[in-house]
C-alpha cells in the first residue's frame, strides 16, 4: 500500500487552525473519484463539505466523527484503485471490530514512509521557521528564529507522530495523556489521542488565555476574567460552555450563601459535605505537615511605619520609567527581603540531611518565592536569581508571576528551587499571622495589611501608614538573634526605602 495517499485537513477559511469532523460521507472500501464529497467538517466559521483530492479506494478514516483536529492532521487514506482490494478494515469511527476472518489484515494506518504530505496545502504552517546555526550572521535574525521555533516544532512533529508505522492491523492503543474528553470516544484510534496530546502540549506553551472572540466579548460584558475559568476546549481554550457554566456556578454560589446554614432534610450525614482531598490541596497538606513537624518554627513580628514606602510607591507609579508596570508595596518588601538576606545570609539557606551528617547549604542566589492563591490552590512560584534584578525588572517579574499564577499556568519548574518566600496575607485584609516555611527553605516573611493608624511621632499622635511584618524561621538554622536582625533590616527598608540606595 505504498501508493496510499493521505489527505491532511486543509485550512478552508482564512487562517483557521482546527475543525471538527462532523460526519464521514464515505467508509473504508468505498471507491471515490476526485471531488466526490468525503466528509463534512465544522470550522469556527461554517459547516464545509470537503471534496476528495484523490481517486481510489478509501483505505482508512483516520479521525473519528465528533473529534476536533488541527489543520494539517491526516484525516483519510485513499489507495489507488486496483492496487489493493481493500476489504473492510477496522473503522475507528464506527467502533466495530475488524472482521478477523479476513485472510490478510491490511494495515489501517497505512504508513507513508516518505511522508507524502500532498494535500496539506501550500502554506499549512506559515510560521514555521528553520533552525539557525549557532554563529548567526545577524543577531536580529537569531532571536526571531529562535523564538519562533518552539511553537511550530510541536506542530510540525504532529503529523509525523501519527504516521508511525504500525506493524499490526489492530489500532494499537497508546496510553493517552488523560484528558476529560477521552471517555467520549470509545475505541478511538491512537492517532487521535496523540493528536490531542500534541495539541495540549502546544497550548501549554502559550501562556495567554485562549478563547474565541465572541466568548471573549461575552466574558468582558459579564465582568468575568477569562483566567478564572477552567478551560475545557480542545486547544485549552475557554469555550462558550465553560463561560456559561462558570457564570451559572458563580450565580449559584452567590445564591447559595443564605441557605448554607439551612438545615437539610433527611439524615444527619447530609449536614456534612465531604470533599475528597486531591491535587494541589493534597500537595499543600503534605508540604505543610512536613515543614511544620520537621522544622522547629520560630515566629517573630514587628510593626512598621510604612508611610515612606507608600510615598515611594506613589512616586514610582507616576514615574515615566514605570509606566504600564504595576507597582505595589510588595515590590518594596521583596527588594527589602533580598537586601536584608545579603546582610544575614543564613536566612537564605536550607537544612540538608545527608549520609555523612547534616549540612546547612547557604545559597548565594535568591530564588524569591511568592505565595499565591490560584484557581488550582496555593502555589509558591519563585523569581529566579531575584538578586540580579533592578527594581523595575523585579516589578515586571512580580507581575508576570502573579498573572501566570492567576491564569493557572504556573509550571512546575517555576515552583522548584526556591530559597526564601514571602506571603502577602495583607492583600486579604489580614494584619499578620504565623506563616509556615516552604519546605526546603528556612525562612518566610509574612506581609500584613497596610492601613492608617494613630502613631506617635516626636511625641505627637498623627495618622501614619502602619503594617506588621511577621517571619517564621527554622530554628535549626536561624537563631533568635539572627532572625531578629533580619526582620529589623527588612523593617528598616520599609520605614526608609532610600536605604536601598546604599
Amino acid at each position, binding site marked *: 500500500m505504498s501508493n496510499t495517499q493521505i489527505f491532511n485537513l486543509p485550512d478552508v477559511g482564512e487562517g483557521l487552525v482546527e475543525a471538527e469532523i462532523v460526519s464521514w460521507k464515505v467508509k473504508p472500501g468505498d471507491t471515490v473519484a*476526485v*471531488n466526490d464529497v468525503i466528509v463534512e467538517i465544522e470550522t469556527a466559521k*461554517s459547516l464545509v*463539505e470537503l471534496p476528495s483530492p484523490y481517486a481510489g479506494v478509501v483505505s482508512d478514516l483516520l479521525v473519528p466523527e465528533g473529534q476536533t483536529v488541527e489543520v494539517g492532521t491526516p484525516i483519510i487514506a485513499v489507495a489507488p484503485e486496483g492496487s489493493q482490494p481493500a476489504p473492510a478494515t477496522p473503522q475507528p469511527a464506527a467502533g466495530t471490530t475488524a472482521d478477523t476472518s479476513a485472510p490478510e489484515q491490511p494495515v489501517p494506518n497505512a504508513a507513508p514512509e516518505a511522508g507524502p504530505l500532498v494535500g496539506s496545502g501550500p502554506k499549512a504552517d506559515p510560521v514555521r521557521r528553520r533552525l539557525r*546555526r549557532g554563529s548567526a550572521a545577524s543577531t536580529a*535574525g537569531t532571536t526571531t528564529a529562535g523564538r519562533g521555533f518552539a511553537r511550530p516544532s510541536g506542530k510540525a512533529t504532529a503529523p509525523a507522530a501519527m504516521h508511525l508505522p504500525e506493524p499490526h492491523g489492530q489500532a494499537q492503543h497508546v496510553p493517552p495523556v488523560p484528558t476529560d474528553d477521552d471517555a467520549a470516544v470509545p475505541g478511538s484510534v491512537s492517532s487521535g489521542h496523540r493528536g490531542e496530546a500534541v495539541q495540549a502540549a502546544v497550548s501549554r506553551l502559550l501562556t495567554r488565555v485562549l478563547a474565541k472572540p465572541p466568548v471573549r466579548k*461575552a466574558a468582558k460584558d459579564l465582568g468575568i476574567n477569562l483566567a478564572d475559568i477552567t478551560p475545557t476546549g480542545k486547544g485549552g481554550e475557554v469555550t462558550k460552555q465553560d463561560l456559561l457554566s462558570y457564570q451559572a456556578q458563580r450565580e449559584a454560589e452567590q445564591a447559595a450563601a443564605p441557605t448554607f446554614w439551612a438545615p437539610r432534610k433527611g439524615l444527619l450525614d447530609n449536614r456534612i459535605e465531604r470533599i475528597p482531598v486531591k491535587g494541589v490541596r493534597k500537595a499543600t497538606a503534605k508540604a505543610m505537615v512536613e515543614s511544620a513537624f520537621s522544622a522547629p518554627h520560630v515566629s517573630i513580628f514587628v510593626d512598621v511605619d510604612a508611610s515612606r514606602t507608600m510615598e515611594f510607591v506613589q512616586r514610582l507609579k507616576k514615574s515615566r520609567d514605570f509606566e504600564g508596570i504595576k507597582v505595589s508595596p510588595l515590590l518594596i518588601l521583596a527588594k527589602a527581603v533580598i537586601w536584608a538576606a545579603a546582610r544575614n545570609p543564613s536566612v537564605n539557606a536550607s537544612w540538608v540531611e545527608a549520609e555523612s551528617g547534616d549540612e546547612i547549604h547557604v545559597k548565594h542566589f535568591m530564588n524569591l518565592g511568592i505565595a499565591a492563591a490560584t484557581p488550582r490552590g496555593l502555589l509558591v512560584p519563585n523569581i529566579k536569581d531575584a538578586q540580579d534584578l533592578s527594581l523595575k525588572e523585579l516589578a515586571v517579574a512580580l507581575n508576570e508571576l502573579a498573572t501566570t499564577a492567576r491564569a493557572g499556568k504556573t509550571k512546575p519548574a517555576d515552583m522548584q528551587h526556591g530559597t526564601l518566600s514571602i506571603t502577602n496575607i495583607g492583600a486579604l485584609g489580614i494584619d499578620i499571622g504565623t506563616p509556615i516555611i516552604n519546605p526546603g527553605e528556612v525562612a518566610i516573611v509574612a506581609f500584613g495589611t497596610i492601613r492608617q493608624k494613630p502613631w506617635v511621632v516626636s511625641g505627637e499622635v498623627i495618622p501614619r501608614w502602619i503594617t506588621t511584618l511577621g517571619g517564621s524561621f527554622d530554628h535549626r538554622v536561624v537563631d533568635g538573634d539572627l532572625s531578629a536582625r533580619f526582620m529589623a533590616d527588612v523593617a528598616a527598608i520599609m520605614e526608609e526605602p532610600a536605604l536601598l540606595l546604599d
Partner: protein
Amino acid sequence: MGAEHLPASEFDIEELEQSLVTSDPADAPPLVQLMAPDGSLREDTKYGHYAAHLDGEALRAMYRDMALVRRFDQEATALQRQGQLLLWPPLLGQEAAQIGSGTALQAQDYVFPTYREHGVALTRGLELSKVLRLFRGVSNGGWDPRESNFHLYTLVLAAQSLHAVGYAMGVQRDGDDAVTVAYFGDGASSEGDVHESMVFAASNQSPVVFFCQNNHWAISVPTEVQSRIPLSNRASGYGFPGVRVDGNDVVAVHAVTRWALERARSGKGPVLIEAFTYRMSAHTTADDPTKYRELAEEEKWRERDPLLRLERYLRSTNTAGQDFFDQIAAEADKLAASTRADVLAMEAPDFEDHFANVYAEPHPLIREELEWHRQYQAGFAEETAGQAEGEAR
C-alpha cells in the same frame, strides 16, 4: 444569563429593512432585458440592435464560455477545499454579466478587474489557471497584464476604478481609441475610490465604462443597506448615463456594454452599467452565506440562472442540440483536469526573485541587500535541508 447573551450578529437585518424608506417603484430604472428567463426574446428599441449581430454561432460561443468558466470555478473551489489554494472567490451566478460584457470589448480596450472577474479573464484570452497563481500564493500577480490588456486582480476594494480612469485619461492624451472598463461590485460602490474616479471621469469625459456587478451581497451586507436608490441612478449625479441591465441575460449585457463602449470611444464620456445579478455562492471560500441570507432567496435566483436561460433559448430554437451540450460538458471537464494539473505543478517562487522586482535596472542598494539575504539564508543549519525540501513538496 444564558446563551442569548452571546452576540449573534452585528445587526438585525429585518429591523434595518423596515427602517429603510423604500423608494417608489416607479422611480426604479427600467431593467434592460433582451432574453427573458424562459429563453424568449424581448424587444428593445434602444439596445436591441446592439445585439443584432449575435448569430447562432456567437450565442453558442457565449454559452461555451459561460459553461467553461463555471466548471473552472467549481474546480477552483474544490482545490481550495483540498488545501491547494489559500482562498477562492467564486463567480457562480455572474457568468452572463462577465461573459456578456467581456465579449463586447475590442482588443485595444483595457480591463481593470476586481478579484472575481474570472469570466472576463476568459474572454480576454487569459489562460485561466494563471489566475490561480495568486490564490495559491506563488505569485503577487500571475500574468503579464500587457499581453491581454487584463489588469491584475485588485484586492484593495475599488482601487482599480481609479486605475481605470487614470488609464483612460492617458488614452485621451495619447489620442488612442481604447476604452477602459472598471469592474467592481455593489459593495465596492460604497468606497470613496469609486466616487473620486467617477468625478474625474465625468470632468474629463474620459473613455471609461464603470461596470458594476450588483450581486446583491457585499459579503453579508445586502445592497439595500448600502444604497437607498438603485445604484445606476447614481450616475446622473455625476453627469453621465447609468443603465440597469439584467445581469443574468448575456445578450442584454453584451448589447448594453457595446453601446457604452461605442459611446465612450466616440468621446461622449463615461457610462455606469449596473448589471443586476446574484452571487449564488459564498463571497469567498472563507464565507458561509447561510448565516445571513435565506435559502428561499437563492432558490428564487436559481430560476434566473444565466446558463439555464441561454440553454432554453438554444434548445427551443434548435440553435444547439444535445450533442453540443455534451461536447461542452466534456470540454469543461477537460479544462478542470488541466487546471488541477497546472495548480499542482505550480512551484513556489524563489525569495530572491523579489529583489529583481524593485528597480527596473540593477541597483547597488538592492544588490547589497540581496547579498545580505544570501548570507542570512546560508546561516541555517544543514540538518533542516531535508525538512525544508519536504515542506516545499
